């Protein structure tokens, strides 16, 4: 089993090297050779890697605690839309090398090779059961918002987040905005103060995924963006539930405390096994601004927000102002977008604001 583990580690490192450097970099060659040599060592008739229920199964044997490399390989397979890789006898170094290059490209479907097969695992689930699990839900219903509420209210520094339900919810959001061209119709107004946090989270998730999809992002990554957006504010719950539901303006110290919620959220989400890395990143960065200001800030000042955080920041701002519009009934959507445009380059990524505005207006004008 140690050899298998080593094989998974080396394969993952080989793929990582390929993402980081050019395809002809020495490291890529070196690691392709190492992968090839390990394949020869561990291969029986075939060498098969499967993902079943979030576990890596190698040659029909579950690889428990696969470590960082195992998790990374699993994520890469998910991003690539595959749950099965099988190497067969006769596999060549050039096939292995090409396969490694292929796996490092997340935006293209896997290629076919003579001795390496990739695909999905058929789990033969009862179709009705799948439907009951909510995978084919078409609409954003109160029921789903209740699920978000349950997840949000299940959050505590002493409890682990139940992420299984999140996937379901996000899948249903995607189906919903595939059916409903006018994205605004999918946004839920806040009926009362205590509904605010999870209703807003739902809307931010829908708006973030809407942006991401318009940029050609799909599959696992789109799901990850949805989940990250849905959880962007969890840090608030770690601070104080009481403070969130208080129907009066916050005091200075509460506002200061509020500004720590990105850190609380990031710490909490970083520790959730199986959760996309984007979730803690977004929780940490969603109040940073495009120009590096905002809160909290990177002391190194080396890197700004990740694009996923930038999208969530746009969705967050839009939904907040849109909610105010609903009550005051004075602002047009175009006016909110104009405010965002005015702050583009400072608060928001100008390219993403333009994309959001154009896509939103096109979707709602039809």
């Amino acid at each position, binding site marked *: *089993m140690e050899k*298998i583990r080593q094989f998974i580690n080396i394969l993952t*490192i080989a793929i990582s*090297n390929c*993402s980081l450097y050019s395809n002809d*970099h020495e*490291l890529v060659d070196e690691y392709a050779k190492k992968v090839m040599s390990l394949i020869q060592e561990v291969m029986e008739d075939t060498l098969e890697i499967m993902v*079943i229920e979030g*576990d890596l*199964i190698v040659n*029909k*044997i*579950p690889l*428990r605690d696969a470590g960082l490399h195992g998790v*990374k390989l699993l*994520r890469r397979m998910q991003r690539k839309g595959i749950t*099965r890789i099988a190497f067969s006898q006769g596999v060549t170094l050039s096939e292995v090398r090409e396969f490694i290059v292929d796996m490092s490209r*997340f935006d293209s479907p896997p290629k076919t090779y003579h001795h390496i097969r990739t*695909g999905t695992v058929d789990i033969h689930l009862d179709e009705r059961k799948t439907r009951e699990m909510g995978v084919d839900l078409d*609409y954003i*219903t*109160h029921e789903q918002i209740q699920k978000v509420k349950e997840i949000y209210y299940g959050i505590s520094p002493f409890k682990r987040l139940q992420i299984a339900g999140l996937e379901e919810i996000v899948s249903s959001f995607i189906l919903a905005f595939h059916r409903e061209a006018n994205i605004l119709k999918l946004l*839920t*107004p806040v*009926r009362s103060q205590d509904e605010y946090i999870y209703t807003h989270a739902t809307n931010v998730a829908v708006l973030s995924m809407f942006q991401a999809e318009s*940029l*050609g992002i799909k599959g696992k*990554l789109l799901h990850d963006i949805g989940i990250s957006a849905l959880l962007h504010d969890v840090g608030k719950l770690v601070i104080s539930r009481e403070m969130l539901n208080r129907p009066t*303006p916050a005091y200075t110290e*509460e*506002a200061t405390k*509020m*500004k720590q919620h990105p*850190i609380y959220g*990031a710490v909490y989400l*970083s520790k959730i096994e199986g959760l996309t890395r*984007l979730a*803690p*990143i977004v929780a940490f960065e969603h*109040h940073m601004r495009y120009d590096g200001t*905002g809160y909290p800030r*990177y002391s190194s000042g080396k890197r700004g927000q990740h*694009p996923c955080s930038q999208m969530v920041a746009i969705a967050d701002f839009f939904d*907040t102002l849109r*909610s*105010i519009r*609903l*009550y005051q009934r*004075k602002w047009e959507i175009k006016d909110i977008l*104009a*405010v965002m*445009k005015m702050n583009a380059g400072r608060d928001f990524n*100008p*390219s993403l604001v333009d*994309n959001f*505005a*154009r896509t939103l*207006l*096109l979707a709602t*004008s039809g």
Partner: protein
Amino acid sequence: MQEKLPLDARLLSDAIIELNISRHNVSIYPKDHPLVSKSLNRAFEYFRRLFELRDEITIAIAKDTIIIDEYSLDKKNPVFKDFALHLNRMSIASVTFTKNLTKDELYSFHRFLLEDTEGMSLDAIREKWKGYDLPNIRLGFIDYSAFGEADGEASKKKLYEWYVHGLLEGTLRVDSLQEGVDEIPPEILAKLINETSTEDLKEESYDRVIASYLRKSSERAFSGKDIKRLLDFINGLRPELKKEFLSSSMNKLSKDIKSVEEALRETPIDTVMTLLKNINEQKLSIPDELRKLLERFSSLETDAIESRIFREEDLVDDITVSSDIASLISDERFDRFVDETYRNEIQRLLDSDAPAGYVEDTEGFNAQWDEEYIERCFNEMILEILLSGGSEVVREEDYEFFNRLLKDQIEELISTAQYGEVLRILRVWKERLGGDDGDGGASSYIHSPETISLFIDSLRISGRQKREEALELCRFYGERIIPPLIHALIQEESQTVRHFLLSLIISFGRMAEAEAIKHLRDERWYVKRNMLFILTEIRSTEGLPHARPLCRHEHPRVSFQAIKYLLRMGDPYGVDMLKEHLEGKTEEGVRQALLLAGTFRVKELVPDLIRMLKKKALKSADYQDKIQIVRALGLIGDPSALDALRDILHSRSILFKTPLRRLKEEIQSTLKHYPPEDVREIIGEVAL
């Protein structure tokens, strides 16, 4: 066979809890320990009571969930989860206990659960289980070989058509159709109905379709989803059908206002507003009670958002806003803050021909979604939290968690030559921990032989491309990295990599001295040569006594490197050794000695060189040797050699005309190295 009765949920939960407790006790204490027998007795007692209801009890495991019959036990319960995960880790899919179960069997079952099956094939696990021979406990294992490649999905279009046809014709009962109709997306249902001739549609047809959408039974009330689907369906219909179906829907809804009220609670406000708008557009008359209900659910609680505005802190909910936006929100004077330009820009965006989903720098944007980039952002975020998060925000256990995580990352970062990232982690660790953090801590991890060996291996492959980062990381390690670097240098076959490793070692300066001296004792000539090279480059004084004996080493590359070292350090022994070599045991020795004499400008050798130069040339090759002497003298530039040079410049030879001409040319080219005032006269003579 006893009829299958529903199990007592409480009893079952208690049985599983006791089973898990006894499992833990068995793993800690010997069989005869009172805690083991006590917990086994309790678990056994629960099973005995369960066997009164059933002859056999089967527990199925779905990863972290326990399923009994069709029900899953509380997924959030940590005990159930722990038990399920433990069984799942052993690839157990189900456990069946039968009525004659004994306490001993239960104990043995726990012993089996303690077996290490990690990495075992299913057959091997089965074989092991068979060895326990427990007739009243049956295990079902997860057979991963049953998982195969997936097939594609079949089209459902034909099926939909069949459902809709039967629904409109009334040839199928609504109840029996429910599942089929539920599956049909509303716009497809509308499309299929739109394709039907109006003549074929009767009032009953509308009602049947509506009834299928708004089915209400004792188990299931209307839901918000039903309302939304209904509305989507109606919106997709031909105008002339819209009114009929809407009317049929309102009739159906008004018959159960209570359920409608429940459903509207779940319905987004925009949906209710659209429904009301449709009703008004179609001029449909609906019961007052229903209208009032719809109107009530199309209004909002006005303070819900207002209270999220923390005006004093420029926070709208949690978003910090600039003072201009804060004023904009509170004063509602939009035009003052957002000038027309921005509104025009928004319009221009809409009118532009740019393709949908366009962002500037697409390549850069796309690269940021790569797993490696995301991982790097994640690392950076953790480091930021570790650096800036106070103990109130980041608790002790969080630090421990992050440190563990970063350790895993380091292995990956080193293997992918991301030394800069490794350094950032190490610096944060140093800052946070202020030095050594004991065994098993971050510091001992980074200095472990395994981590260092991984680093050296990575340096060999890609250190040259990341030279600066590699150097910095080596410096971070300090002295500790020198022995492994020297070891790698000794083993290395590639000359390019050897040069790189040498440059890394040399960058440590005198810190590398002791290790290099130690390796001078190595028998291999190339090791001695490399160590002497290091000592030379770092200008080691300690190495001199160790180098002197090596000046007479049998391998010229060792002896001359030793001499070079001594000369560089100004050690007179080096000059003596050079003299010895000049006296010429071998041609190559003399050539090397001349080269060094010139390179190191050894003035002490000038008389010897002059003597050699004046020696009568007997053959053509002697002139070639003299050229080398002239070169060495030129590099030294001592004017005392000029007389000898002048003599050659004025000399003639009949036999060796060409070699002499070449020697003279060499002398002329080296004159520039002498003091100008001393060579002015000779240059003048040559010019004549």
